[in-house]
């Protein structure tokens, strides 16, 4: 018996891979980060005032809230310190150009232009002194940068978590089905179907853009319920008619996709209220996106279901050896029906979430998502043969995929190579997992002398 750290590593060794990936991308994206907002504004003002005198300063910033805070802080600190703030420009390059043209026309001279790191990228400001020589070569000052990995910024980490939510929610359902020894190929199509159904219901029955919260919840529950029914149908095919899960869910995948196109009439449905994006884009708890919280809650619940309940033990038992489980008194048919219905429910939720994130439903959503979900499950250490696997392993697997995709986008790897890398990493991660679990020497020996193997 092993216990403690080694056991934990055996179950969740992929955490190390995830950690290594995060470490790598932290190094690879180490770059100058520009402070923004109020603090940045005061810092620039301090630097200008530090040079002494009563300099004339033009403050330029963009249109975001942070830009406004930057300009506000800079202007008030400069005025308080005795500098002469000629003007404050908040807007696009065009707005800055108009002001600069006017100042140059009036023959004004500037000592400083205080601006943000984003605005200094404008070619207008890069060529300021050649374009407007009459301004008297003002110094352009931006907040001092610090070195920090883009990957490790709060915004990016939330991005990674947010980007994976739909696939991760699919994958938690898929984990349960795969532990029973089955597979569900229909989840990608169910994303599309659920997204289309919830959008159509809100548009046609809920009042469209004026729909209230209750109507949206009802529509979401209806879409969820329908996906549960579809999941039950797949389960019925598998249990009652002994159709292999691969074939049964392949057929359901086609049916669900076709239904989504029929219901949506081939187009996307976008007459939805702005408040519908609460689930997919809102962030109510300490700035953590609601979708991420939903994902985590589902993982904790599923983990408890699989590790603390009789039903969970039955699911493992059926996957390990269905016949033995049946003889031991497990209701195998019920267990399988539950697994497929649960997987359908997760896909239904994923579809509602996807529709909420994109504020529209279209039958083209979810293409290939079943494969991403299966990849997350397998990378997470669940055996496709059934009977073993960990729910949180799947979450780690989903994050590995998300981190690789995000990291490659951040480091500018082009699309074709991204696919190759993703495939190689999935394969490598699975090999690594096998290497940990099995005695490879015996495997190699067996492969080298197959004839003598009993």
């Amino acid at each position, binding site marked *: 018996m092993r216990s403690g750290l080694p056991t934990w590593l055996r179950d969740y060794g992929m955490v190390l891979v995830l950690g*290594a990936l995060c470490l*790598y991308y932290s190094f*690879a*994206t*180490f*770059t*100058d980060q*520009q402070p923004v907002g109020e603090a940045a504004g005061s810092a620039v003002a301090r630097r200008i005032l530090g040079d002494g005198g009563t300099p004339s300063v033009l403050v330029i910033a963009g*249109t*975001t809230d942070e*830009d406004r805070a930057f300009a506000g802080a800079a202007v008030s600190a400069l005025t308080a310190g005795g500098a002469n703030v000629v003007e404050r420009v908040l807007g*696009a*390059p*065009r*707005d800055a*150009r108009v002001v600069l043209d006017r100042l140059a026309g009036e023959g004004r001279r500037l000592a400083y232009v205080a601006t943000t790191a*984003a605005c200094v*990228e*404008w*070619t*207008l400001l890069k060529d300021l002194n050649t374009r407007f020589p009459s301004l008297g070569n003002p110094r352009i000052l931006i907040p001092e940068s610090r070195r920090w990995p*883009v990957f490790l*910024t709060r*915004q*990016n980490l939330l*991005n990674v978590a947010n980007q994976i939510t*739909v696939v991760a929610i699919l994958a938690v359902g898929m984990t349960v089905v795969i532990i029973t020894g089955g597979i569900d190929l229909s989840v990608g199509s169910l994303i599309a179907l659920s997204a289309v159904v919830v959008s159509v219901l809100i548009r046609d029955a809920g009042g469209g853009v004026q729909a209230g919260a209750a109507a949206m919840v009802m529509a979401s529950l209806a879409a969820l319920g329908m996906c549960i029914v579809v999941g039950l149908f797949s389960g019925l095919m598998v249990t009652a008619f002994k159709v292999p899960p691969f074939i049964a869910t392949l057929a359901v995948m086609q049916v669900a996709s076709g239904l989504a196109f029929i219901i949506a009439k*081939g187009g*996307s449905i*976008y007459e939805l209220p702005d408040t519908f*994006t609460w689930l997919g*884009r809102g962030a109510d708890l300490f700035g953590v996106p609601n979708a991420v919280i939903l994902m985590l809650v589902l993982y904790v619940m599923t983990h408890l279901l699989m590790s603390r309940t009789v039903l969970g033990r039955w699911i493992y038992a059926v996957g390990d050896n269905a016949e033995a489980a049946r003889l031991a008194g497990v209701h195998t048919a019920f267990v399988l029906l539950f697994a497929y219905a649960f997987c359908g429910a997760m896909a239904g939720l994923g579809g509602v979430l*996807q529709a909420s*994130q*994109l*504020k*529209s439903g*279209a039958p*083209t*959503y979810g*293409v290939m998502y079943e494969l991403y979900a299966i990849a997350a499950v397998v990378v997470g250490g669940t055996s496709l043969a059934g009977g073993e696997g960990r729910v949180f392993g799947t979450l780690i697997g989903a994050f590995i995929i998300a981190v690789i995709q*995000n*990291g*490659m*986008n*951040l*480091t*500018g*790897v*082009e*699309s074709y*190579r991204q696919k190759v*890398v993703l495939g*190689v*990493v999935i394969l*490598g991660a699975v090999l*690594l997992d096998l*290497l*940990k679990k099995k005695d*490879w020497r015996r495997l190699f020996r067996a492969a080298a002398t197959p004839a003598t193997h009993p």
Partner: protein
Amino acid sequence: MKTPRLGRLVLLLVGLFSMAFSCGTSAAEKKGRIGVSLLTLANPFFRDLGDAIKEEAAKHGMEVSIVSGDFDAARQRNQVADFIVQRCAAIVLSPCDSKAVSTALAEANKAGIPVFTVDIAALGAGKVVSHVATDNLGGGRLAAQAMIEALGGKGKVAILDHPEVESVLLRTQGFEEELAKQRQEKGVTIQVVAKLPGGGVKDKSFKAAEDLLQAQTDLAGIFAINDPSALGAVAALEKAGRLGKVKVIGFDGMPEGKAAIRAGQIYADPIQFPDRIGRTAVQQIKKYLDGDDVPAQVLIPTALYRQADAQKDASLPR
């Protein structure tokens, strides 16, 4: 027993990671970066467009990251989120879904990053600085002129349509407007007798054209709204033995379409210029960053491409 296994594990890890990362470039950069997410990179049209963006941006000292949206609106939204984290100076999109792109636009707008669209326009909410695309209406007019030229101004024609797409609606609209105008002014007698959906793809257009040939025994011409549709029609004509008797006008100027024009199977195409679209888009970005006025829409005209052009075209394989 334990140590060698651990060693092998480390080796595998190192191999795995060096493989995965050797192709990444450092994100540390000083130049302004343009983030580009195109509908797909499997289509030569978008590849040419992307290459032109890269070339033109290099001239202005800017870097470009190009990714493919793969027709997946959710994927494209994630790509835009990554561009925002990288604080790109500008974002160029050809939306995977003209309506669903609005959430990505809203996020870019909120981050203060200007968005430009190419080829496909965004509909609905969200601010786009400028849209650069082919002049599809003018292209449709050119197609009608080619049809008149091919048929000598008389006969029955059909349109292989794909009305789900905005740009195609403009092509057929331009085609019909020009025919109507020439009927009034120049005594052209060409009549549009049928409009069938070809889905913009070869197989569906093939079936639609077969049905069309059954129904219209004296058909003189077919206007197909893009090259795949035109090639589908050509296949149906070949099968029916009416190739050459029924003139086909396509649209796009894809390599396969151009080859068919050289072989005389398609009479002519109004061709698009993806490279010009890409270059113009970067010029609009430059103008924007310079503080110049940027037009909300720039249309790139098409040009007629006939057999004589194809015979001179060095880009086609012999």
